[in-house]
């Protein structure tokens, strides 16, 4: 690569990073400003104060919302991993009549926009007593066609001879699944786990519908609530809450970016 081209690419990369990262850095910067500085429209705080963060945790039950979001995200992640890997195992290792039809059924789920089903789902949640309940926030999301496809791609790389050998040796299917298939697929499971956690943590519409008390409300809905309450007065506090909410997922993304990219393309294209 020629020197000119190298430096052109570097300058493009740096310029793009600055533009793209600006809103996030701006949020960080505002979160350290005093109220007066925010109103002056400054870009950078004169001194870094954690006052806004203290206020964010005091004025709204932010810690409680964070715990709720963690619990819900972990629970959905575990559920999706288990349910998807069971289904993927059947699609790869258990041949039976009608399996292709069921596979087609899984594909067809991707054509149903979740939003088109939200009204009856809300009514179902009401009937089951799942409003303001962790169950309502988690169980409807356990089955995931995308997750099943992603793991199916991975399971297919396990030689079928291994499965046949285990059958001959009399190892039960479930033990083969649990003790062989899952451990060798660790990477894909981690990828799917990161994806599940990210999407659940960031979920907005459904938690808005099924929570109306502080007990189970997730942090995203907490943000909306804060922003409507504090809007004209205390942007610094709101931004401090924003930073607290995005830190876990940004960290997770920074750690898992490579795997996520591989996994998403794998599950998506083939």
């Amino acid at each position, binding site marked *: 690569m020629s020197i000119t081209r190298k430096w052109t690419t*570097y300058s493009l990369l740096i310029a*793009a990073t600055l533009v793209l*990262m600006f*809103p*996030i850095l701006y949020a960080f910067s505002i979160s350290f400003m005093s109220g007066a500085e925010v109103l002056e429209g400054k870009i950078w705080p004169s001194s870094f104060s954690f006052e806004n963060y203290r206020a964010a945790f005091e004025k709204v039950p932010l810690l409680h919302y964070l715990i709720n979001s963690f619990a819900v995200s972990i629970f959905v992640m575990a559920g999706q991993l288990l349910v998807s890997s069971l289904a993927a195992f059947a699609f790869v290792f258990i041949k039976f009549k009608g399996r292709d039809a069921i596979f087609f059924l899984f594909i067809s789920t991707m*054509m149903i926009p979740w939003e*088109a089903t939200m009204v009856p789902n809300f009514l179902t949640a009401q009937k089951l007593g799942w409003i303001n309940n962790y169950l309502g926030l988690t169980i409807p999301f356990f089955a995931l066609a995308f997750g099943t496809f992603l793991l199916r791609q991975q399971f297919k790389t396990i030689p079928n001879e291994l499965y046949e050998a285990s059958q001959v040796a009399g190892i039960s299917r479930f*033990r083969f699944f649990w003790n062989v298939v899952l451990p060798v697929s660790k990477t894909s499971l981690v990828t799917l786990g990161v994806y599940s956690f990210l999407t659940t943590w960031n979920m907005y*519409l459904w938690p808005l519908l099924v929570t109306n008390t502080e007990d189970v409300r997730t942090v995203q809905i907490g943000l909306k609530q804060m922003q409507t309450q504090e809007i004209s007065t205390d942007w610094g506090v709101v931004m401090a809450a924003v930073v607290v909410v995005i830190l876990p997922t940004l960290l997770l993304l920074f750690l898992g970016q490579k795997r996520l990219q591989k996994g998403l393309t794998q599950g998506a294209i083939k």
Partner: protein
Amino acid sequence: MSAVTKTANSPVSVSANPKEKKSMPTIIVGLSYLLPSLLLFSVFLFYPMIKTLYLSLFITDTQGNPLNFVGLQNFLYLFTDPNFLQSMKATFLFVLYTVPIGLIIALFLALIANEKLKGIGFFRTMFSSTMGMSVAASSVIWMFMYNPTIGVINKVLNLVGIHDVQWLLDPKYALVAVSISTIWMNIGFTFLILLGGLQNIDEKLYENARIAGVSYWYQLRKITLPMLSPTLFFIITVSFINAFQTFGQIDILTKGGPTDSTNVIVYSIYKDAFVNYNVGSASAQATILFFCILLVTALQFKLGERKVHYQ
């Protein structure tokens, strides 16, 4: 599930005769592994979709119980209702504003981040970072940036002599403002998918091109884009579908206003069902959403098949 546990608990030694294990028909075993997924899909996806189609043919009470069968009247009413037509217009404009521009920006970023340079991993991470940003957090940040008096966007515009644009309150700009923030939010995901597609292209093709001494642009047109087309095809479909499903940024930034200029279809469904308690109309709109997405998917499959280059 019982079949699973049964197999799991059976002692290993039983199977001196492996044939004996086959006694349970594989169809039962297979279905038991698929049961959790099938059950959840049935209860939370297939059943509610059918229920939505069903309710769209009825006048309902506020609890969503069907009262009178009215056939297609909900639909006929919607297609003459200026509010709904406005909502369709807002949805299509939103798709038009966000999908092509978002794709071009993400493709540009993926191309420059696919070069083999020192420290490229850092830039890749930065470019994908908006994927970790929730719609609520992103919208709150953009809301502040759009603030007419203290937000950074008007401050910058002031420098070039443009004054006091009411980004979120002016019907002329609100949809554009929401679209800009949406493009930003989606860049991370689109970038990540496209970068993955670029990295899957066989390195040998570029080596040959280098030996032949062709220009960068020629390479881009004759190798990169054709080889990337399956990925492009996939991400265009996904972007379309995502745009049709937009809700969070509307709820936080504009609440569908001003004068319904940002009242995209999912927000309209939400308002009808949970604010106006008109479940029949909301179901009819949800049905229209479903068919729109079905149409886009089918269309892209049909068009995509001809142009896409499969390896």
